[in-house]
């Protein structure tokens, strides 16, 4: 059964008081719980937050499923989200995704690679079109101005780093 850490619970408590209405805390608390749950929002996460925040589970689930940054299934250590809209689509975001997935050993978008390190998602415009193609790993600052070669190196570097 999922439980937030004591620090996590204290965070939820402070977020509940931060905005004008307590519902406004749902997004930030979901981020926190997703991070503590290894990168995805499980039904247990929803149930736990519902009890902790005293907000109906259906309302939290509704938010979790509406916004794309909440993962509905387990992801690898590095959730690689490649922009494939318009400029990034034109300038190679889709080739980049295919090449990186192959290198990482992911057969399908959303799958976790056999070593547990990678999941790939195609995402819509991330607002960095001048550095296309680009991607975001988890919720880190962007990785920009890529091409296939740089993308493959990125997978190898992350594998070396993440395997340790």
């Amino acid at each position: 059964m999922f439980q937030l850490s004591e620090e996590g619970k204290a965070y939820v408590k402070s977020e509940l008081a931060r905005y004008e209405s307590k519902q406004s805390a749902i997004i930030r608390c979901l981020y926190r719980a997703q991070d503590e749950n290894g990168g995805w929002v499980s039904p247990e996460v929803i149930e736990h937050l519902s009890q902790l925040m005293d907000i109906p589970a259906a309302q939290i689930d509704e938010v979790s499923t509406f916004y794309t940054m909440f993962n509905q299934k387990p992801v690898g250590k590095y959730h690689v989200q490649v922009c494939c809209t318009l400029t990034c689509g034109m300038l190679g975001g889709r080739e980049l995704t295919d090449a990186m997935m192959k290198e990482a050993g992911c057969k399908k978008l959303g799958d976790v690679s056999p070593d547990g390190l990678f999941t790939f998602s195609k995402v819509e415009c991330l607002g960095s079109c001048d550095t296309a193609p680009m991607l975001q790993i988890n919720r880190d600052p962007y990785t920009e101005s890529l091409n296939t070669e740089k993308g493959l190196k990125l997978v190898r570097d992350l594998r070396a780093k993440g395997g340790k």
Partner: protein
Amino acid sequence: MAEVKYLSEHYHKPEYRGLAGYKANGGYAMLEKALKMQPQQIIDEVKASGLRGRGGAGFPTGMKWGFLPKNGEPRYLLCNADESEPGTFKDRVMMEKAPHQLIEGMIISAYAVGAKKAYIYIRGEYMGPAAILEEAIAEAKKAGYIGKNILGSGVDVELDLYLGAGAYICGEETGLISSLEGFKGQPKLKPPFPAVQGYLKKPTIVNNVETLAAVVNIIRDGGQGYRKYGTEKSAGTKLFSLSGAVQKPGTYEVPLGYKLMDFINNECGGLLPGRKLKGVIPGGSSAPILSAEECMDATLDYENMAAKGSMLGSGAIIVIDDSYCMVDVLSTITHFYHHESCGQCTPCREGTGWVQKIVHGIVHGNGKPGDVDLLLKIADNMKGRTICALSDAAALPVLSFVTKYREEFEYFIKEKKSKVKGTQIYAQLNPSEMGAH
């Protein structure tokens, strides 16, 4: 006329991001000046400046502020930093380079409209800029520019940051309000407009990042002074995000009214060697595309873009050259809108799906005779029939691409391959197959 650094005067200085560097370059002096003015005087200056919303709709800012009730009822100021219109990245640059400029503009604007509480709604993916803003807000609070009795004026304004979590629709102001209230970011029917009934059913003003930052310059130079750049109906400067097939993509500030082709050739270094211009999307993916011919005499202002049947939008210019297949480019756009439709209204929810299926069908060699006319018919039925403008935004690129590049669509349907040699075909995905969400 060429690039001017009016709002972006100090953006090249790394120290401008911090409070000390911002103040050393004149920062927060305009807040001091504004706090000595009457709120109505500030509103009058903003009206006189002719400033129009820089988020996309181009609505006059002073007029929007004027819709607030005069009864002193509690109200809110919200900054729309949900920048999600494909092609747009200028707000991100502004927040990264000059977070205090936005904060100063917001405190001045909050004082002018009588809001004691202001929020910046930033898209969840912008974790980098969000961290920069959090730090700047903390600095400004500590220095007494945010909070109670700002600079001894008796004016109270609280400011906080709210994080989205991935939804284009939250850039629509009522969708943004729904999201801020802790719900799905679904737009609400207007009227009532947010200025009358917005966040928590209270009067609310929603302005774009660049709009609020411009208020600082309006206080400095006065409404008339702000008009030294731009045209009568498109006053001031604007930051444009240019991307696509050019040598030097990026964010550049130019006076409104600047020639599109000068912008592409001078500021952005022109097209890549050996390429020919095919078309330009002038205001983000929702703006109807301009053919190469239409680009030649186009100017970057609201009235010229409207006269050409397009729009200035968020100032996101996407340049497309002859090496790209228009059917494929449109397929990324139709995919986007299908994925981002919030699902409330049938013409949008179903229309974006049908359009996406037909365009992707053509790309995969499954196009049928009559598909082109069917696309035009569906897109036409998506316009003006929904709660918000997303459906229109999804229909306009379809209508303009299909009308202006019809022969490429017909060719693809007939020959089952692109007219542009070397076009790669990618797997067709439903929104549910895109990844872990």
